[in-house]
């Protein structure tokens, strides 16, 4: 047994609630010892719409994880998403106070405080503040300024923020279980932590987490987190489009999507039809395979282009050499890699959680990346390392 207590990561997704229990082993390896998973209720587009039902799901999932790992869960690390989560870069500048213009740790601490002090609309709160680059006088892209010389020190800080009430509602669900929330993090950030290699971060990479209700994205460029955010559009929209296009129930649309779906339209589907057998409340019918792929393609294409547009306006895509990594349940969609490569003009792969052991087979899929990343985040940043790294604002935000 390691000396550090295990971390329980919880993600209340739009389609699934997942909990993962991980232990820290020597060498920083994380071992997954237990997990729970259940279909979600009371969540739309990553946000809570029904506290009671969502709470019941969380209870079921945690009980499952407790049962499997023979552990008692009292506190969790919570991954949060939602279309309201956005990022901005805030630059803070201070005059160097040290003797002979030598930059000291004090100067660095001070510039961090200034860079973190961002003005947000009153209904918004900071989720994370992440250091990007320092700048000494006119010298940009400084990574470690301590000991260097200059008159003024600036710092670019990526600030992730979201609507306070919505963030709090997710925390509220967990507290109603009742379980304590130890820390919260943006789920896209967690996914990126789980799947990206150091080489990918250095070379520049975009992680796109294709969730049920939201699509999260996190972009690394020049070894720092360059942009992050979420769209309130996800796999549910794909399913809904299919249901509306063919006038079929959501459940039928869901199985059509997962069994016969494709994000690209290829010639092999021409003229083919899929028969949907009748079932209770549904008379049965057949749909054109090509039409199904067209419906899915238009939606997924639109989501990906939306992310591309956002990254373009921030001039990030030119710095993404290592390509796109897809995670989340949507990464299972047939044709998604080809479509992503076509839209971004960059290599694309499916991200799998790395640097873990234990229940690897059970947690191998891209849909577990968020929770596994959250466990890694917990071990890395929640145990007293505030001020560096991802600087979660949770304690400040939610009180304890």
């Amino acid at each position, binding site marked *: 047994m390691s000396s550090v207590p295990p971390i329980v990561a919880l993600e209340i997704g739009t389609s699934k609630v997942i909990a993962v229990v991980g232990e820290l082993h020597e060498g920083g390896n994380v071992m997954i010892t237990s997990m729970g998973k259940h279909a979600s209720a009371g969540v*739309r*587009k990553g946000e809570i*719409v029904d506290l009671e039902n969502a709470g019941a799901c969380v209870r079921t999932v945690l009980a499952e994880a407790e049962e499997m790992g023979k552990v008692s869960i009292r506190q969790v690390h919570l991954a949060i998403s939602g*279309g309201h989560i956005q990022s901005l870069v805030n630059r803070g500048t201070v005059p160097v106070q040290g003797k002979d213009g030598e930059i000291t740790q004090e100067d660095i601490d001070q510039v961090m405080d200034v860079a973190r002090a961002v003005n947000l609309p009153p209904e918004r709160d900071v989720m994370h503040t992440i250091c990007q680059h320092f700048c000494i006088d006119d010298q940009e892209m400084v990574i470690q300024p301590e000991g260097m010389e200059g008159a003024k020190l600036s710092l670019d800080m990526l600030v992730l923020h979201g609507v306070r009430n919505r963030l709090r509602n997710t925390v509220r669900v967990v507290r109603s279980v009742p379980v304590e929330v130890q820390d919260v993090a943006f789920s896209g950030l967690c996914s990126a932590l789980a799947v990206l290699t150091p080489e990918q971060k250095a070379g520049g990479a975009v992680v796109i987490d294709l969730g049920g209700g939201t699509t999260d994205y996190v972009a690394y460029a020049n070894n720092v987190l360059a942009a992050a955010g979420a*769209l*309130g*559009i996800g796999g*549910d*929209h794909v399913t*809904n*489009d299919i*249901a*509306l*296009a*063919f*006038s*079929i*129930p*959501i459940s039928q649309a869901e199985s059509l999507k997962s069994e016969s779906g494709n994000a690209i339209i290829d010639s092999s589907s021409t003229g083919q039809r899929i028969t949907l057998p*009748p079932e209770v*409340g*549904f*008379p049965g019918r057949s*749909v*054109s395979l*090509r*039409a199904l792929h*067209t*419906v899915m393609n*238009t*939606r997924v*294409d*639109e989501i990906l282009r*939306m992310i591309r547009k956002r990254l373009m306006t921030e001039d990030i895509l030119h710095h993404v050499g290592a390509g796109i990594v897809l995670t989340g349940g949507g990464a299972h969609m047939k044709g998604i890699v080809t479509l992503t490569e076509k839209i971004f003009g960059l290599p694309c792969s499916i991200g799998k959680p790395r640097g873990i052991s234990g229940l690897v087979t059970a947690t191998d899929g891209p849909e577990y990346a968020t929770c596994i990343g959250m466990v890694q985040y917990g071990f890395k940043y929640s145990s007293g390392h505030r001020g560096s790294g991802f600087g979660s604002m949770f304690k400040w935000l939610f009180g304890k």
Partner: protein
Amino acid sequence: MHERKVSIVGLGGGGCKIVDWIARRCTGGPSIIAISTDSEVLSTSHATTKLQIGSVRTTGLGTGGDVNLGRLSAEDEIEMIRSLFEGADLVILVVALGGGTGTGGAPVVLNAARNAGALTLCFATLPFNFEGQQKKEYAEEGIASLKDVADALIVVPNERLFEFIGVSNVADSFEKADEVISDGISSVWKLIMKPGFINLDFAHLQTIVRNGGGVCTFGYGTASGGGRIESALKSLLEGPLLEKGAVISEARSLLVSIAGGSDLTLKEIDDVMKAISGKMQKDAKLFMGTIIDPDFQDKLSITVIASEKWSSDPEPKPVADSGRESETAVKPKRGRGAAGAKDLQTKLKLEPTGKGRFNNVEPTVLDGEDFDIPTFIRRSISIER
């Protein structure tokens, strides 16, 4: 003459049941379409085409009497419904007013049919009194909205079928009511579409309807064997459908159709017309036609469509002089064609677009676009269904 294409459409539970009767009897006749929100209704239907609407909104369980839900369910499928009517010359919509799908969806379906270029005739039944006041109110509102969109509207109050049905159990009552109405509908369809030696067409029907201020009712009598004329006339003129002949004596215009086999004689036609014109007002307009149908061998049926004044209706317009009549008769009540299509286009934009499960959640609006609406709809990409 070009073979005219007729679609008989049953909408909602009641409407579907009636067209089911027709479907079982007139094989090889018109195309029969059943549209419902309730998948159970469709699964037992004999219609040639079945369309389930509002499956996303109602999960296939029907509307539960919610008229608004019925309307929205139909609006969601407007394109699909319109495609059903592609190439149809006449769409006969059969609807039992008072229910959710029928009452709410009927104007939408009629509009779709008009937009596809078809003439529309709507048969609407009114609920029995024992079905409750609310259903009755829904039905009255339904008539008001149908009057505006149907080229011809024929209303059959179920209450009038009571005596026709006689004393029987509830299941049989509904069954019998459906049978009577389906007979009436088939005879109207045949009247317009099948050749007889005295032809009537849709323009005549419209004239009757216009003179009635937009609403008509129908009477029906049938008999076979010896003395069939007497029996058929008796059930027609003394039956409840025309209020024991009272409707005829008050009607401003009448359309009489006599259907028989090849054994139908001129004498019989003369007898029928004499009996009816003896009852009607001297200045009322009368149209008549005959149908020769091999199915009617040794049988005779009389169908009367009469303009009727409804309490909520304005004074029926005086009958125009015959010269103008023939001119206006071929013109439908409202502008159609280009103007009609334009009408619907602007209307569609104002109506809420189908968002399915995202209907009641906060929309995802990015760059001024509502992303909850399916992409293929926003980009106007046509989907083969």
